[in-house]
């Protein structure tokens, strides 16, 4: 998918990865030869916004930044996985589905059969992004409440970091003073009384300050260390370390741009809210769903926001009884403005009837990409959208997304052009292992019809 299609190529798989690919690949002795003559071989497809495996039982609950999508991944949703694989899908990006607010961290999973279950996912990237659901489907007041809650959580994280920094400074200062005093005392007691050297009790800083658990969370400079500190020896107090705040720690990863933030938002109002938050905390921002993204494409470009579309933009849809009419070419507005976008199977508002946003929609992520291509004035290659484009977007293109040496051997063999609905998947390999085969489809060299 990186380059043009190759006719009559050979792919050499060694273990779980692709070793070589091309026209003149030598077949080593003793190799198992998979015959796919007359067929089309593609990389496994990627759903960049999947609900597959996030079963209904794992939805709901409390939105919490420390949630991890993979904890909720139902590896026994066998039928759904099978249906995805027989439609060529092998990699998913999953997000926690716990209502609106900061819902937790997404994960990227390859559908590899594993030792503990038929479809144990293999994590390509855990904590791939921090997910925030702005709850576009809710009433405006509820959405504002959500936004407010999210902003407060981010501010709390910033405060937490500040408190930590202050604590660190104070601790340094405290330790310095303890040391100074010790030296001073040592000087005072020149003769070298052994006992007195140990005097600053509970001194050096790695004990967890078990004293004073009732000290309030640091707001200013807690625990002594003020300007005139050390004037009275007895008042030298060890600063109190702020209680560890795991929620804030996760949020700080996003603030430090170690991971991007994926905002699930649909309406332009919510998208603007997401951009505001992103600006306030200088976040690396990805918009999920983003039905109305094309209306504000220049603003998205300016904010360097990227988009994982759920539905083809530029289609008609309804909000309540308001019929919002779209011109064709919605995705082109994004492209024209220079916004990076790809497609997943995620929800789009007002198009519930299409089944997008449901676990079962993952199997049709390629069809969804085809619908996007239909809406565009440009020649968009739908297959590229759900393979290498998605892999690069998600930052996993060193592992999957194309048939190239060194990448995982996640390979789909189709009876014909994957974009033609009459084509069937004959075989699927994940990590070089055969996970699906339809024997009713015969290869050219078996003398069957394509």
């Amino acid at each position, binding site marked *: 998918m990186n380059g043009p299609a190759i006719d009559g190529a050979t792919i050499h798989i060694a273990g779980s990865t692709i070793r070589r690919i091309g026209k003149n690949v030598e077949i080593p002795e003793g190799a198992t030869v998979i015959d796919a003559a007359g067929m089309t071989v593609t990389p496994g497809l990627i759903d960049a916004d999947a609900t597959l495996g996030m079963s209904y039982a794992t939805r709901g609950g409390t939105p919490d930044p420390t949630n991890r999508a993979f904890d909720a991944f139902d590896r026994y949703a066998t039928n759904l996985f099978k249906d995805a694989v027989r439609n060529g899908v092998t990699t998913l990006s999953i997000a926690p589905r716990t209502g609106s607010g900061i819902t937790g961290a997404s994960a990227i999973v390859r559908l590899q059969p594993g030792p503990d279950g038929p479809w144990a996912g293999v994590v390509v990237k855990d904590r791939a992004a921090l997910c925030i659901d702005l709850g576009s489907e809710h009433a405006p007041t509820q959405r504002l409440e959500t936004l407010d809650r999210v902003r407060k959580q981010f501010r709390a994280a910033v405060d937490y970091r500040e408190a930590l920094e202050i604590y660190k400074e104070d601790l340094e200062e405290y330790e310095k003073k303890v040391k100074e005093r010790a030296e001073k005392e040592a000087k005072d007691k020149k003769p070298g009384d052994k006992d007195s050297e140990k005097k600053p009790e509970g001194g050096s800083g790695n004990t967890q300050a078990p004293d004073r658990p009732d000290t309030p969370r640091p707001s200013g400079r807690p625990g002594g260390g003020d300007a005139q500190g050390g004037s009275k020896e007895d008042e030298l107090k060890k600063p109190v370390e702020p209680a560890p705040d795991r929620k804030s720690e996760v949020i700080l990863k996003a603030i430090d741009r170690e991971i991007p933030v994926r905002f699930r938002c649909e309406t332009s109002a919510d998208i603007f809210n997401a951009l505001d938050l992103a600006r306030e905390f200088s976040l690396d921002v990805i918009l999920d769903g983003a039905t109305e993204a094309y209306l504000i494409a220049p603003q998205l470009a300016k904010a360097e926001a990227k988009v994982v579309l759920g539905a083809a933009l530029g289609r008609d849809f309804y909000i309540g*009884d308001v019929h919002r009419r779209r*011109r064709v*070419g919605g995705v082109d507005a994004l492209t024209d403005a220079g916004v990076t976008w790809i497609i997943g199977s995620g929800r789009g508002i007002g198009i519930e009837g299409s089944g997008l946003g449901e676990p079962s929609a993952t199997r049709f992520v390629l*069809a969804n990409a085809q619908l996007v291509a239909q809406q565009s004035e440009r020649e968009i290659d739908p297959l590229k959208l759900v393979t290498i484009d998605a892999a690069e977007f998600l930052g996993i293109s060193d592992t999957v997304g194309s048939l190239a040496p060194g990448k995982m051997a996640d390979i789909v063999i189709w009876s014909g052009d994957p974009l033609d*609905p009459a084509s069937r998947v004959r075989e699927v390999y994940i990590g070089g292992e055969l996970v699906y085969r339809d024997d009713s489809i015969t290869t050219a060299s078996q003398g069957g019809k394509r």
Partner: protein
Amino acid sequence: MRRLLGLAISACLLAALPAAGQDRTILIGSVVRPDGTIAPDMAVVIAGGKVDRVVAAKEASPDAKDTVVRFDEHPGAVISPGLIDLRSLAGALSDAFERTRPVDPDLSALDAVKIGDRTFESALAGGITAVMIVPGETNIVGGAAATVRTHPAADGSLDVLRADGPMTFTLGATVLDQNRGPTSRAGAQTMLRDALAAAKAGKGSERLAKVINKEMDALVVCEAAEDVDAAARTFGEYSLKPNMVLGPDALEALDDLAGSKISVVLGPLTFHAPQRVLMGPAKAAKADVDLAFAGRTPILEPSGLRVTAALAVRYGLDPAAARLAMTRNAARVAGVADRVGTIEPGKDADIVVFSGDPLRLEAKVLEVYVKGVKAYVRPASESDHSWDDVAVGGSDHD
């Protein structure tokens, strides 16, 4: 879009003027044959709003007055009959479901259709040139369906292909109603029997009598397999074999319908449909009934009809059968197959040009012709990204 429509209307007026001789339009590309397969390198000659002939491209022999349309930028362009969506609510989104009388044979869906409704434009842009509006799916006897074109007639009025039928019936939970009754399946069945018996005796609705006398066709919406059984029994008493719309839970009954020579309407299929439902159309084809699709525009987007066909093919339906289910067979169910549904000499030139096989979802609608007049052209690429909101309730009368 409004401007485009204006242009299209003025084009209509021009075409309606007594043109010298007969100006012909010749479309060159692959053509969907009346059997649903695709023939490459063909020419469709349109004259006087009708298909004049379909010949090999090199035999088209256009003269100077003819407009020849080639789709050079899209070498795979496919000229297809206009798509027909059965069970649409275009133009009648909130107005077609009457809930006062469970037996309402004299209701006409046409009365609910708003002229110039925006949902028609969207359907047209999606390649749907005609929609059948099924009334009162909340009633046992729902009234007469209507089939209209999505493009207005030359004088700007609604272009009605058929105003009076088929008569639609519904069996299933949607007709149950605690307030007005029936409150049970058995009760619903009794009401249906009574209505048919009264019509037979000449005491009921004239329209229902027409159905009994086979002067009017019937379409029965069946939610579940047992509804199919019930319909077969009740209508069988009058030796009627109505066409049927089968809901997802009624697919098991397909085996019983094998060889019954009726038309069966399935769909829409969505990304969410379970495998069993996705395989329904292939199962119908095996049962040798005439298969047609419903896309449910505008509740689903206009592309929903093609999504239905594409998913049906991915789950085993023959591609030609899928194309017929959106065109010829749909026209048969609507009772308008004498004029539309295929590209054959003498048929109205309701034609869509796709950039490829309409079953491939990335194929774009390039042009739409209605009665030989260009009704839609894909907007040029210097994209106008503006948009507008339109209320769909009763307030939208512009």
